[in-house]
């Protein structure tokens, strides 16, 4: 209770109250996360329960358009699945892949950054060289290449089961560099401070010094990068799924839904692709606005 009181009186919450745009973004982020997490309870239909699907309902337009059916508020797709429900289930996959990819990228980046900054020498030169080279290629290309190579390399029958993990890994592998660079920079500063020297003198293991002493002190900027990274990870996932190399069609994400809907754009069934697309943009945009605000609010130079 005391902590809540302190938070509500603090600077961060004050700057939050002052910015209506941030509040809207926070509300939208919260709404999309809740809709995704509780899709099983909140969605009006279960789009993956084949028993309840009726092909006669296929291509129903949104409720407010002529021929629309109030039971399917945003219309239905080619298999008679409710678009609103597929969006909610789909955003769950998108969100899960995005969050896992950012978490994995953080783990890889922080570990390599700590090693690079604390150990130094040849290891540092090698890791940073690899980071430089990788940074000169766009993230989407790296993710696409890893994903493509893994697809060819893995046995055919385990494709669908492994696709999500491959996807998470490829997005994470394309995004670790930022974390590694930031952590390395702050580690170089922290390495020479007294508490690290003291820990070294009493004979703690280097790994223990890195992870339990240095890490907590370099984590701040990393968390800010991570909040801004989630949006771009979700977009990368959607792009890969749209290109048909992302999640398997049995577990569609927002990108897969847009890909499916894209086939019906010309026959006039615009809602199958427009609503998942709009949902994706709103989700990512509000997360980015929130991340931007957090970065500014936590930056003491801007106060």
């Amino acid at each position: 209770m005391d902590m809540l009181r302190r938070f509500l009186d603090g600077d961060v919450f004050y700057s939050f109250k002052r910015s209506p745009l941030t509040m809207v973004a926070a509300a939208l982020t919260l709404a999309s996360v809740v809709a995704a997490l509780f899709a099983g309870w909140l969605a009006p239909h279960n789009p993956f329960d084949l028993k309840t699907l009726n092909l006669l309902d296929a291509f129903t337009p949104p409720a407010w358009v002529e021929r629309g059916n109030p039971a399917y508020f945003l219309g239905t797709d080619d298999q008679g699945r409710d678009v609103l429900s597929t969006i909610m289930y789909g955003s769950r996959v998108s969100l899960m892949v995005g969050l896992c990819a950012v978490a994995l990228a953080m783990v890889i980046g922080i570990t390599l950054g700590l090693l690079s900054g604390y150990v130094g020498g040849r290891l540092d030169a090698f890791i940073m060289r690899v980071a430089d080279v990788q940074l000169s290629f766009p993230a989407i290309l790296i993710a696409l290449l890893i994903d493509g190579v893994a697809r060819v390399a893995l046995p055919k029958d385990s494709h669908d089961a492994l696709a999500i993990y491959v996807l998470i890994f490829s997005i994470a592998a394309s995004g670790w560099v930022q974390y590694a660079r930031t952590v390395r920079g702050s580690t170089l500063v922290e390495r020479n401070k007294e508490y690290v020297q003291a820990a070294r003198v009493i004979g703690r293991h280097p790994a223990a010094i890195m992870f339990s002493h240095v890490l907590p002190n370099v984590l701040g900027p990393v968390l800010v990068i991570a909040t801004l990274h989630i949006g771009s990870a979700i977009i990368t996932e959607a792009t890969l799924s749209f290109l048909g190399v992302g999640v398997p069609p049995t577990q569609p994400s927002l990108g897969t839904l847009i890909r499916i809907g894209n086939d019906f754009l010309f026959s006039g069934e615009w809602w199958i692709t427009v609503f998942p697309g709009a949902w994706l943009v709103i989700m990512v945009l509000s997360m980015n606005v929130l991340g931007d605000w957090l970065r500014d609010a936590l930056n003491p130079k801007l106060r």
Partner: protein
Amino acid sequence: MFAFVLTRIAQGVVVMLVVGFIAFSLFNFVGDPVALMLPPEATQADRQAMREALGLDRPFTVQFANFVTNAVQGNFGISLRLGRPVSALLVERLPATLELAFVAASLALLVGIPLGVYTGLKRNAWSSRLLLTASLIGVSLPTFLIGIFLILIFAVWLGWLPSFGRGDTVALGAWTTGFLSPTGLKALILPSITLGLFQLTLIMRLVRSEMLEVLRTDYIKFARARGLTNRAVHFGHALRNTLVPVITITGLQLGSIIAFAIVTETVFQWPGMGLLFIQAIQFADIPVMAAYLCLIGLIFVLINLVVDLLYYFVDPRLRIERAGAEGH
């Protein structure tokens, strides 16, 4: 200077060798090439003969050296999906991608720089704020969605522009161009806007922030004190000094234009290299994947090399710093 260029080139060669090694591993460790090329009823002797004909019985290093020699000569074998030499396929698709990338990059520069100057000079006008907000949304929109929305509006609803393909192309020797026919030009509009929009917003924001920075400096104040016209100050002094980072970023962005061309080409069914690559991934067409990998690696290494050198020549401060660092 010479040493700098040499290390840069050496680095590029190392990157190319790594890329080549990945492509080579694709060929040899992913699936058995002999099994792919022979019919299932082939005998053991056939397999052995094939193995020797392909040089697969030789040591690993010799095989890799052979692969590199072939790759340098542009020989990547035959596409499994289309049954034609990969190099011919790539040469055929290259003009489509390059023309698209060229138009998109020109669009980004020709619209992005003036908008950046405008928003930098009139920073408080409502039109500038509108442009900045719009650019923020532009950055958050994924490329494929921009393409889909443009198709929906201009091709499906309004019916003004074509939504897929290159239109009629004119062959100039081996190069097919869409610039010389009306349908080819029309077909370029939507894909190039889709591909260029992100770079456009990026360049606009970059020029704006550089302009704001430069306009605060002393030499701008002196230029004004000398009684130069606004026009001379803004374009002769301010804009010229913002162009160094713009050149670098644009150069580096050329690479990401080519990468995002994969997405744009898929949305618009544009017959370029990116579409070829995506289809190769979906069909596990290894020779095409390997060749594309090497080609894109080469393009990126070259772009980075040229940008590094340009930067070095354009900004004298960098030269002094490096000379100082090497003196230690």
